């Protein structure tokens, strides 16, 4: 018999019983369906031990790495502490040490954290103001900087957090910073794999983190970045990305403009359409998509039809928060 801890609750799991059955026996409200490891409804996360190998089959590598597993395929080998949702706790405090405009609507926020964050490039954290107002923002830097994190905060009209971050927030002010979250991140296990990254607006933030991480790790496959916006004003870091392209022969950068005048050196069209036209096949590629939810969902299917395997498509849809409720599953901006 193994001891299972879930929040404040302690329960038992018999040796011939799956974790899912044990949770259901203790009347835990956990979603489930097939009970055969197929539907992945009952995915949970171990907070201490590495889950049994069999219970992680079929999950994405990024999920496996973070100790996610399927309760229906898990016969616990040790006592375990588990979590049902991805709700992260706040664990450190950070001080604003830099604030600079990237373009008219996006500010680069640098936050020095009291504790080093163990994150993967591409993940996001929740930032919380003193009064509790909370929003999720992607980390825009690589793991080289584990205590000084950077974020791209786009100002949305009426967005309470983003307008405050653009206006009143001062250097020296403090914020609470959550544990890193999200499954759209870089793992260096297949350095020869070609990568396609498509971002709209401040969706460049996690992609820039992923790119610098990959290049620092010596990624040898081609890395294609397509950054899109309606107009030239919505793009940023153009010179920086062009300089990176000069420095690394396997990094290719295309800024895309979907409306209006398109200057030399920019592609005309939506970033995802430009990318799909430029790259004939995506078989065995890794694909990262960040930004507007419609772009993310549409491009997932485009990339899949071009041959990318669904397990190699990582995405982070930026939803705008309509009220105070912080999001748990996807990055939220406002």
């Amino acid at each position, binding site marked *: 018999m193994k001891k299972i801890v879930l929040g404040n609750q302690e329960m038992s799991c018999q040796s011939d019983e799956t974790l899912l059955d044990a949770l259901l026996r203790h009347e835990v409200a956990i979603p489930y369906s*097939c*009970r*055969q490891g*197929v*539907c*992945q409804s009952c995915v949970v996360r171990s907070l201490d031990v590495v889950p049994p190998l*069999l219970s992680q*089959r*079929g999950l994405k590598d990024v999920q496996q790495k973070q100790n996610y597993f399927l309760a229906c395929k898990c016969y616990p080998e040790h006592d375990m502490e588990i979590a049902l949702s991805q709700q992260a706790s706040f664990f450190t405090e950070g001080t604003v040490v830099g604030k600079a405009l990237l373009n008219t609507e996006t500010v680069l926020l640098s936050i020095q954290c009291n504790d080093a964050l163990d994150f993967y490039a591409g993940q996001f954290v929740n930032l919380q103001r003193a009064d509790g107002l909370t929003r999720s923002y992607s980390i825009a830097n690589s793991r080289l900087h584990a205590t000084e994190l950077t974020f791209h905060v786009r100002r949305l009209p009426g967005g309470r957090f983003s307008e405050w971050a653009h206006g009143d927030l001062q250097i020296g002010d403090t914020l609470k910073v959550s544990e890193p979250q999200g499954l759209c991140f870089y793992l260096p296990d297949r350095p020869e794999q070609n990568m396609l990254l498509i971002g709209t607006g401040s969706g460049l933030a996690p992609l820039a983190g992923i790119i610098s991480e990959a290049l620092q790790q010596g990624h040898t496959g081609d890395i294609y970045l397509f950054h899109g916006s309606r107009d030239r004003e919505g793009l940023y870091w153009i010179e920086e990305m062009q300089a990176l392209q000069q420095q690394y022969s396997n990094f290719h950068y295309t800024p895309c403009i979907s409306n209006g005048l398109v200057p030399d050196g920019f592609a005309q069209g939506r970033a995802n359409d430009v990318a799909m036209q430029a790259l004939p096949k995506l078989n065995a590629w890794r694909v990262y998509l960040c930004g507007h939810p419609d772009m993310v*969902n549409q491009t*997932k*299917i485009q990339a*899949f*039809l071009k041959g990318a*395997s*669904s397990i190699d*498509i990582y995405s982070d849809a930026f939803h705008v928060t309509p009220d105070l409720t912080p999001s748990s599953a996807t990055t939220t901006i406002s």
Partner: protein
Amino acid sequence: MSEEATPTKATLYERIGGEAAVNAAVELFYRKVLSDHRINRFFANTNMDEQIAKQKAFFTMAFGGPNTYTGTDMRNAHAALVKRGLDDSHFDAVMEHLGATLQELNVPADLIGEAAAIAESVRNDILGK
């Protein structure tokens, strides 16, 4: 390969290649479905990862593998699609892609026949008849 005990005769699921065969088939199949204008409206505009999990369950079922779906589950799951016009012609198209996918994976014809017969057996449940 399956983890379930196999006392005597190998099941279709095992003969066809088990979970590895399901994984190979699902993506080929789902690409065909999404590219087919007769039926892709029933599959698009949803979460792709969830859709792929559903197609995995479909193939596991068609291969006679471990699944716990009942006729009632099938009816409930597809009721909204039936309201949107899902009928025999769409089911036929899916069967066509099932066969083509398995041919592409060089599954022997007799095994394809067995899988098709299992899939065919849920036609009325799926179409709410």
